[in-house]
């Protein structure tokens, strides 16, 4: 940076961030990993509050297989972790399942505003593994 002039620096700062008001980022990331599963989100974009994911992948670990999972987005009303309807308002919900259970299950083209209730800022990922003893692995949070 020693010989970078101020105008050049400003230009460099602006170029990779152009259009940032519309497109915040695009990323492929493992967003959680435990000793029994990992979940990844691919090609994430956020545009004016609308979240789009090209794919969510869930992989079972240590002998666990994936029976399926549901990804729900919602407007959080009760302030309690996770989706509870009522009072929370669902804005999109997608499910996938695998029969027989598989080590890895994918879900494609996810958005948070498919129900006509606006774009939900909160989300919940509910995963059913096999064997599971009736348990479900649930992750939740805010999407933006």
């Amino acid at each position, binding site marked *: 940076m020693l010989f970078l002039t101020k105008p*050049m620096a400003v230009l460099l700062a602006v170029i990779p961030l152009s259009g940032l008001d519309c497109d915040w980022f695009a990323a492929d990331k493992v967003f959680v990993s435990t000793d029994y599963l990992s979940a990844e989100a691919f090609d994430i974009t956020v545009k004016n509050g609308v979240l789009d994911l090209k794919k969510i992948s869930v992989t079972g670990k240590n002998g666990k297989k994936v029976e399926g999972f549901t990804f729900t987005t919602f407007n959080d009303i009760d302030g309690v972790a996770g989706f509870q309807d009522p009072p929370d308002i669902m804005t999109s919900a997608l499910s996938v399942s695998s029969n027989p259970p598989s080590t890895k299950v994918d879900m494609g083209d996810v958005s948070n505003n498919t129900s006509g209730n606006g774009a939900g800022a909160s989300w919940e990922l509910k995963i059913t593994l096999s064997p599971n003893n009736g348990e479900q692995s649930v992750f939740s949070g805010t999407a933006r």
Partner: protein
Amino acid sequence: MKLSLPAFLIGLSALLLAAFLSSDLSSQAASSLSQASQEKTFAQAKDAHIFNVHRYGIGVVVHNPLKSKHFSRRIDVRDLGPNCTYLYEDLEPTKATVRVNDNYILALHPDGRGGLTGDVPHSVLGALQTNEVLIDVYHQSRLLFTHSFTATFF
């Protein structure tokens, strides 16, 4: 024209000072622009970004940097308590470490309320890149989960 040694040194110092100031201002300009864009996007969100692992009843919170001193990222790890839905092992988070771009590690400290807290200083976050930020959350020596903030928070 022959310059005396003092005059040469003064001239050299002036040149170096000008180069330094130019570099410093340039860095600041680039950094502040990208920071402004980043903070603006974050500001459109709620007060915090939250990630919950219901199985263990543990939540990770990144507070809106506009509400933090110098735009640092305050990160809290919380015990969600026994009423968390889909709770199977109610474990207390006893240790958490945050890794930033593989070259900065922050150990969160107890917050006095059964959780952990710490600040990722803004200075360690790259201005012109998506920062890769991972948190490892433990109960005693057991690693419960690793969560990436990269796609959602930074």
